[in-house]
């Protein structure tokens, strides 16, 4: 059986079951202790206080920026990069004049033909090796024994 929505709360009243509402009162001491514990927990105030702290921090930061702009010395003097580097690195030491080169054997300047000769000499050996490599198969063929055909 399903109880319909038309039934009113009064239809459901029952003096026997209403006895469930008797008793269950907190003792005065327990009640007081609970009220003290609950009412003094600062949990509900915490978010509001945190918001306040953020506002104060933001205001202080803004004040610091404004103070920095206002109190900054008027027209800044242009500083050249050289002067800045000079300030950072200190005075550069004076470069001494280069010492004279020790005297050596006098060399006459080589003419161009000498240079080419030297290069050609350097290339001589590789060219010989290449030539040998090219000739090698021919040598091998030449060295093969002749096949004697027997009739």
């Amino acid at each position, binding site marked *: 059986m399903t109880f319909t929505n038309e039934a009113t*709360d009064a239809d459901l009243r029952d003096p026997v079951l209403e006895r469930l509402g008797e008793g269950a009162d907190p003792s005065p001491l327990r009640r007081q202790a609970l009220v003290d514990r609950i009412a003094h927990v600062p949990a509900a105030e915490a978010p509001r206080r945190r918001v306040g702290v953020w506002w104060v921090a933001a205001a202080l930061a803004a004040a610091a920026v404004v103070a920095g702009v206002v109190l900054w010395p008027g027209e800044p003097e242009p500083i050249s990069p050289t002067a800045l580097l000079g300030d950072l690195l200190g005075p550069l030491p004076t470069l001494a004049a280069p010492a004279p080169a020790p005297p050596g054997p006098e060399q006459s300047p080589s003419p161009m033909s000498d240079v080419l000769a030297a290069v050609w000499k350097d290339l001589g050996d590789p060219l010989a090796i290449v030539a040998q490599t090219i000739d090698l198969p021919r040598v091998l063929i030449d060295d093969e024994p002749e096949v004697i055909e027997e009739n």
Partner: protein
Amino acid sequence: MTEALPWDTVRLAARGDPAARRDLVEQTIDEVWRLAMRLTRRSDEADMVTQETYARALAALDGLKPNGRFEGYLARIATNLVLERWRKKRPTGPVPAHLADEQAEPWQQVARDEDDRRRLSALWQAVGELDPKPRAAVLLFYAQGESCEAIGRILDAPAGTVKTWLHRSRNQIRRRAESLLAEQPAGGVARSGDLT
């Protein structure tokens, strides 16, 4: 049911007014504790549920819309906390030694004589055997005096469903309590209608 807490007090408490906060707790704590005690049937558990209820309620006061009774909002939190415990079937530990004297169940404080104590004990045992939501509905309706609509809001169910729960549970409780009384007759054979 006590007089409803004015929403002005709630508004002031939400703004962090300590006096309003204390007023809010003072004016509503009896109802919350009674509900927690009826649902948990242990005073130490009722204390825990009450504290947790206020911790949650006070933390969310800012966003609360003034709709209905503030006590209904507290009852919703407390009931859901207990339903959560029932669903988890959290085992209840032994009663702490310093609370042993205070652990009388609700009916033990109001029973007029031994027979009355037995009747109320059977009644409470039968209520304790109901499913969580119908059990909460029975206690909210009969013990706390909430309306079906208010219970529907607390338990997140239509009023018609609440009425069905109450109707079925009432019959179930009566049958079960009478059977319990018949099993343990005191001073003679239990008669039909002993519950009344």
